């Protein structure tokens, strides 16, 4: 049987020093979409993700990192999202994930 990819994986352990991270953009993102704070990190968005099914794109990891002020590579990574909207339908906290993709890209990119 082929390995079924449920979208879960184990990330390398990392240490985040919040003092070194610039949270301005993160705060701006949360200010525009306060519901993001309700995320429980369940990973349903990643599990259902169309792009995540085809690549190693991991939406939960991405928006969690951005929230913690780790922006490196996030814009490029988010460009893999197809905006298909599955994640929004499965999110148990009703987070407007499609809006979030666009919001993060707007704040981190230049448009």
């Amino acid at each position, binding site marked *: 049987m082929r390995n079924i990819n449920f979208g879960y994986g184990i990330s390398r352990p990392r240490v985040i020093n919040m003092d070194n991270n610039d949270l301005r953009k993160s705060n701006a993102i949360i200010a525009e979409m306060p*519901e993001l704070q309700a995320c429980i990190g369940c990973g349903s968005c990643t599990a*259902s993700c*169309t792009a995540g*099914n*085809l*690549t190693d794109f991991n939406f939960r990891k991405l928006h969690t990192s951005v929230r913690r002020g780790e922006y490196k590579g996030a814009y490029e990574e988010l*460009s*893999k999202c*197809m*905006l*298909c*909207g*599955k994640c929004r*339908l*499965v999110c148990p906290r*009703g*987070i*407007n994930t*499609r*809006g979030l993709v*666009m919001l993060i890209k707007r704040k981190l*990119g*230049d*448009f």
Partner: protein
Amino acid sequence: MDDILLYFAPFTIPFVVGTLFLFIAVGVKWVLWLMRLPRVDKLLIRRGIFTRQTLIAVWEVIRESLLHVRIFKHNPVLGYMHASLAFGWFLLIAVGWIETTVYLGADFVPLQGHVFFKYFAPHLALQEHYAVFEQLMDALLLIVLSGVMLAWFKRLRSKALGMRRTTKHVLFDRIALSALWFVFPARLVAESLTVAVYGGGGFLTGSIGGWLAEVVPADVLAMVYEPAWWFYSCALGVFFVAMPFSRYMHILTEIPLIFLRRWSLRPNKERRSYDNFEVEACSRCGICIDPCQLQADLGLNDTQSVYFLRDRRYNMLSLKIANNCLMCGRCEAKCPVGINLNTLRLNSRAKRRNIPHEGRYRYLQGIDRSSGMGKVGYFAGCMTSLTPAVQRSMERIFEAAGEEVWYADRDGGVCCGRPLMLSGETDAARKMMESNRALFRKHEITTLVTSCPICLKVFKEEYHLEGVEVLHHTEYIDRLIAEGRITPKSDNTAYTYHDPCELGRGCGIYDAPRRVIGAVGKLAEPKHTRRDALCCGSSLANTVINDGQQLRIAQRMTAELEATGCDTIVTACPLCNKAIARAATRPARDIAEIVAKNIE
């Protein structure tokens, strides 16, 4: 007679200046818009101008710009208001022109001579036959005045004209509107005063003038007579100056728009100069406000098409307003000017970064997770993969019909591209479309069936799949039943059907799903149905409203579906299905599910 007709009086200056300004301003706008049209559009004009379409357009201008037949059909009182103002005013000008020509011969008379004829030729009243014109002009004035009264009334109480809400206006609108309200009453006063001084007049100005002559002393009449004409001329002048910058620009914009449209110009995913004609043809009648569920269910009052077009026109469109629309098309279906509201909304979303960087979606290259063989392809779509019951039901139906099927995305696939397109990233979306298109070509399918109306629409409109018939699964199942390839049994279940926006208004598919439901049970229609159907609220086109707001829209529309007393709610879109399911108190099923269930 010429000696009594000097066509100049100081009070005419505001009118003359206003008119000149209007002609120049509108002329400049039109010329600029036309010049900036891309070559393809200019070519369309050149091809269309000497065809029958031009004549049809002339007829349509009469019907719509003067008589406002479409508004009339929507709402007779509102239609009368528009028609009395537009057609009444037009006739006043036309009959006024004939009047002057009859009495003065074909000699050149400057514009103000026509418009203020009564002032310049009060003694004509004593001439033979003139009474006919007097009566006619009075009747026309009365008709226009009745329209003005209705407009006043509409401002005060919009409900009386069948509208829950009426439009909020910008400054130029207010100036123009106030001036317009005064134009005709001022004309009535000025003409009546003239009658009071010189005699004559029809049934309206005659009686008022006669009454004035009785109650007002002659020296007072002589004193207010001239100022009354000044006031009339000023009201006209102010209106004409404000007009090109106000909603009333629609009066003049709708005319070229009708012609351009007949020559097959259309707005597109990219902004173009042609859009100006559509944007400024909006009369801000506000008919689009009431159908909008963002208004009715959520109380949002700044994002409806009328406000969106207003903001876009004055270059103050925010990203939020552009994005806060379900693109359900309910307003577009009602707009009396026939503006392509969805397309304009879409091309307002095009972002500066629309041009994707080269590496974007490179990972799509060579992706092929399809399975099966067959000339019929089935593309479930992303949303369908979240409703596996639909997928299974379709497989069951294919099997029962003995169809050999190629499954494009059973083990994951690439999104159809429409969601990304709806957010304005058309060029990036094209990469996805190309990937899917190549896949369809590679497997040489001749029929493409999809369960998702969102995919269906983009397949039909953007994929250019020549030689491949694109069908929604409702159409496909309908065909299987008609050909006797499947014979689902019918029971007494009471169904009600929700028309998905993208399937109904989007692709015009209303009958196939109803025939299929009719083949397996009884169908009851909800209050809003077919072209008037409500949106489920989960539309991918809206990235602004939150989960609670989506749910509220879904609850309102689901309550309407349940009011039919049905046992089961049926729809034909996996996204609608999800939205309804969480708001409903009874089962929500896809059409494929109820058919599969009833196959032996």
